[in-house]
């Protein structure tokens, strides 16, 4: 099924075919969304929801392992992180709209049982701040996306962006400080 398609698209993309990415993304999005929904609706109570697990599982399902190289895997994770960001932010916007009395369709993602620990910041605000950061330093914005939304480690992020782990670390630390202030979280944090 999709397996062969996605693998081909991924290889094409990694060889420089930009349009392959446009076709790749919806497929990845659908799969991730499907997996996330399943986790959250307790179809599979043995699992807990984690970005990393989600991405790995989607990867296993979508990609034909024998045809791709290690670098393709990192690239796939990169795309997946972007997708997770979109899924979560869309979900947050919908939830917000509903609160205001809108009648948007309730996403299956709304079943919050498996949702991560509550955050003391707003995902939508983070998404906006990341967009601002992307104008200032696109690479840093990607680093945050891969680490926070994709659940990638420093090394995996370095692999995905084809930069050194030291650079990832520097971008990660400084971008976090910038975002922390941008989201007005400073001074309100408990000691």
């Amino acid at each position, binding site marked *: 099924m999709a397996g062969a398609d996605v693998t081909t698209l991924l290889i094409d993309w990694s060889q420089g075919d930009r349009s392959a990415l446009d076709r790749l993304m919806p497929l990845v999005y659908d799969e991730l969304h499907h997996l996330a929904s399943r986790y959250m609706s307790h179809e599979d109570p043995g699992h807990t*929801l984690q970005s990393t697990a989600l991405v790995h599982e989607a990867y296993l399902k979508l990609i034909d392992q024998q045809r791709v190289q290690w670098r393709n895997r990192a690239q796939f994770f990169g795309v997946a992180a972007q997708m997770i960001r979109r899924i979560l932010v869309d979900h947050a916007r919908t939830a917000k709209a509903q609160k205001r009395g809108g009648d948007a369709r309730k996403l299956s993602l709304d079943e919050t049982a498996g949702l*991560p620990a509550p955050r003391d910041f707003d995902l939508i605000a983070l998404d906006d701040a990341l967009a601002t950061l992307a104008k200032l330093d696109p690479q840093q914005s990607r680093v945050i996306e891969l680490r926070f939304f994709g659940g990638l480690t420093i090394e995996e992020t370095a692999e995905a962006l084809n930069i050194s782990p030291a650079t990832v670390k520097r971008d990660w630390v400084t971008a976090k400080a910038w975002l922390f202030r941008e989201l007005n979280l400073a001074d309100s944090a408990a000691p």
Partner: protein
Amino acid sequence: MNTQRWQQIKEVLYAAVELAPDQRENYLDQVCGGDLPLRREVEALIEANDQAGEFLETPALGAKPAPEDLAGSLVGHYRIVGEIGRGGMAVVYRAVREDDFRQEVAVKVVKRGMDTDELLERFRHERQILALLSHNNIARVLDGGATADGRPYFVMELVHGLPITDYCDRNNLGIHERLLLFLKVCGAVEYAHRNLVVHRDLKPANILIGADGEPKLLDFGVAKLLSPDATGATAGLTGAQVRLLTPEYASPEQVRGERITTATDLYALGAVLYELLTGAKAHRLTSSGAVELERVICLTDPTKPSETGEKRSELRGDLDNIVLKALEKQPERRYWHAEQLAEDIQRYLDGRPVLARPDTIRYRTVKFCRRNKVLTISAVVVLLTLIGGIIATAWQARIAQRERAVAERRFDEVRKLGWTLLFEVDPEIAPLAGATKAREKLLSASIAYLDALARDAKGDPALLRELAEAYEKAAQVRGTPGFANLGREEVAVQNLRKAMALREQLLATDPSSIDFRLELARATRLLAQLIQDPAEARGLAQRALEMVQLAARRPPVDDKIRAELASAHYQVGQQLVATDPGPAIQEFRQALALYKDPSNVSLVHKKIGALLLLQRDAEHALVEYNAAIALDEDVARRDPSDARSRLNLSYGYSDRGSVLVQLQRLPEAIESYRKAEAIRLAQATADPSDSRSRSSLVSVTWRIGMALAQTDRRAATETLERAVRLGEFLNRDFPANSIAHRELLDAYGALANAYRIWGSCVEAQRWWELRRRKLEEWKLVNSEAVSDHAIAACESRSGKSDRN
């Protein structure tokens, strides 16, 4: 803000957050210069970074490699049952033994990010010590290792209970009851300290009170395993490390990244007591930024407990003073050990006057916190790397001999550099506890090129002299008694022989030179002090004395000659101590008349005292010791951070203890010993690689045990067994150190002797046999006052204990 500006900010920001907090300001001064907007922006982001904590660290969809995965899995021999709680760097689980489901334990799994190999290595080293911590009020550490995916874990006794503060509040305990509970906590801390284990992270959450009302202290020794530097000295904390502290209970030295000793726990105990009495924390922090942390903890005095809580009148006076003494910014000004704090509380409970008094001369804490900005260990390492490069270049240039002038100049640079290292850098770091390893590195680097220089130095008197001095210096750090040393005596002897040979060469070039003669005498004397063979040592000391006397025959006799003459007399006296105590005392009195420096005067007083004691004249010995201690206390007071003068003071205390034992004034004796013990414990925990303080800790411990043997058999047994344990650990870490050998032998001997006195002959003989085997292993002869004969002749008074 534009992209370019952000890149600039980013670079400066990252460099700054990687620095220790106290170095950042300096760095920003340099980098930002007059660019104030840049500086403001970076400072704001540093503040944000310090506060960010766990921000974004957990991925959007749930936790990182999930700790939950562990439920049901096997960690070591233990099956994980469920989660108990999680902290900044670890998750604690409930688990059962795989082969015995009734035995429940707590398993603490450390989060990733630490070097697992290093941690495991450290754990292997510490586990014996931790496993032996056996106290009713301390939760035992049972095991440790790494999980299948490489996360380090510790297995601990499972404790059911409430944090001490919650327990007291929930049960509406009054001040009196709270203090009684706290006394037990002090007892447990004292016990751990005597076994050389410092907690480092005492706080209510680590002091649980069980249903039976008994406190249990958790995590003893764990914080040290997790700390970035096992010796306890760090070059200043990074932002991440600051966050690992529990700021409300962290001491100034922890915030500043300075050496951690038993005094650190005393401070934390003070903070816990503060909270128990007032319901408020000693320090209120408005943010977790490093700057704020340092400001509050290092510079701000806590409000008096009586002015904080509700029960004002009860706290005013004594309790205020006790709490504030425990919370002194300067470690040396706190209680010396937990038992002393407990005793003061007991005095308060009994209505007797307490030790703690408000300060009349308030020490400037600001001064304390800003001081000690000396060379740190890491700076030394950087320096060494630089030097390595310069030396290599210099030698290449010299060997090639292509440009002679350049080569000469380079050679000179190396000389100067070596000079700086040995005589300027080394004295700077020498008095700091924790510096031994750094000094060792410094010196082996220096010696390597000294040897190279020596091969080339023939005929140049100035260089010969420099070299000789450098070898002597190196010998001192490597093994001369009285210096923090690494137990490398043989290397030290070699270095001194090299120095002597050079000094002899020098004197041959100018036999009339007083200086050359004095210097040869000095080198000879230093060798006499270090050499093992008594006949050779005595010959060397005598030769040294004759040389100085020759130099002193011709006036003027200046201070330099006088001091060397004193030292020579002293060394001859030293060599006579074992065989001819009478003449030895005469030599010492001669030295006493010549010495001016108070530490030397005090040392000689102590030597005379020791000999008088040997001759059973304890009354007069006590006079000598009291004179010595008065001088030493004065020296130690002038610079409380000088490790050497404090160790020296401890020698006075312990020897006076022995004099008092002789006079059968046992309570006074134990009090004096305990003072010595407290100093040595603090130093041994600050720098476990200092064999000197650890040897002397073994010594004072078995002496306390023997003083107790006559009155309290149980306490005596506990203390003597601890002395043996400390001695065994010491010898494990320093297998070739003769002082360490002797202390362990003495500890075995003391235990054997105590059992002999109690009439438990089988036990006595068992320990005596252990001692005999060690004597054989180390090829030493029995020099104990207690003879094989005495042990063999032991008569069992009550056969009962023997048959158990």
